[in-house]
């Protein structure tokens, strides 16, 4: 006997808002090159966290904060 598929609401997957980005991704988002991004990190204009083996991650909040500061 043929089974009637359950009538479900169409699921629309919400885009997952990432909490952090790699240095390259963060540079792309700000529209600056890698080296400038590392300079900002070294000068602590942007705080980062380190994950496995020391890879740097830039929190989204830091990018937003930099832009807000820049927009003053």
């Amino acid at each position, binding site marked *: 006997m043929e089974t009637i598929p359950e009538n479900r609401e169409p699921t629309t997957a919400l885009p997952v808002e990432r909490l952090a980005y*790699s*240095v*390259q991704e963060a540079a792309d988002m*700000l*529209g*600056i*090159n*890698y*080296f*400038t991004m*590392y*300079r900002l*990190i*070294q*000068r602590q*204009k942007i705080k980062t966290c*380190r994950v*496995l*083996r*020391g*890879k*740097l991650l830039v929190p989204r909040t830091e990018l937003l904060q*930099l*832009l807000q500061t*820049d*927009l003053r």
Partner: protein
Amino acid sequence: MNYYERPTPLQEQAYTEARQQFAEQLKQFKSNCDALHNIEANLSVTANDMSRAIRQASGRIIQTDDGTQWQHDVDLTRITSVCHRHTPAGLEFAVVECLPLKSGEMNDVLTRGNDATEVLQHFARDQRQVFKVWKDDLTAQVWEHLSEKHPHQDMSIVAESFEIKLAREMSRRETLAQNQSRGIHV
């Protein structure tokens, strides 16, 4: 750790793949290192150019984000310049970064002081620290890439070869790098 062991064919292949994967970053790292070496090698020339620019006093005015106005002397890189201003205590020099962000320009004083050569030297030292941060991050990215592509395989020889390659770009000490490359041509 044995630096003289030979890489396996799989490790050689992983190295080639990783070089392709990170080609753009390696290229940028090298070109920025070259720019820094150029600045370091030409400190006295730049200082002379600054003196000439000060005498001519024709540079554009740059206002930094702390409200200070500087007269532009010489470009160091695409976004950094050496500037000066007159103060009651005499001339003050600064390396200023004009960073074009998507939201607008950020003009930041990187280093400042009363001696032009010292300001340039300080800037060069700071840049070396930036390369250290970059090198460590890039090496970590290579480790991540290798562990994803070749799980359960010892790829330390490959990652270390990358690290040595980057260190060599920074220092240009080729002999040290060749001695420590553990058989992989860096």
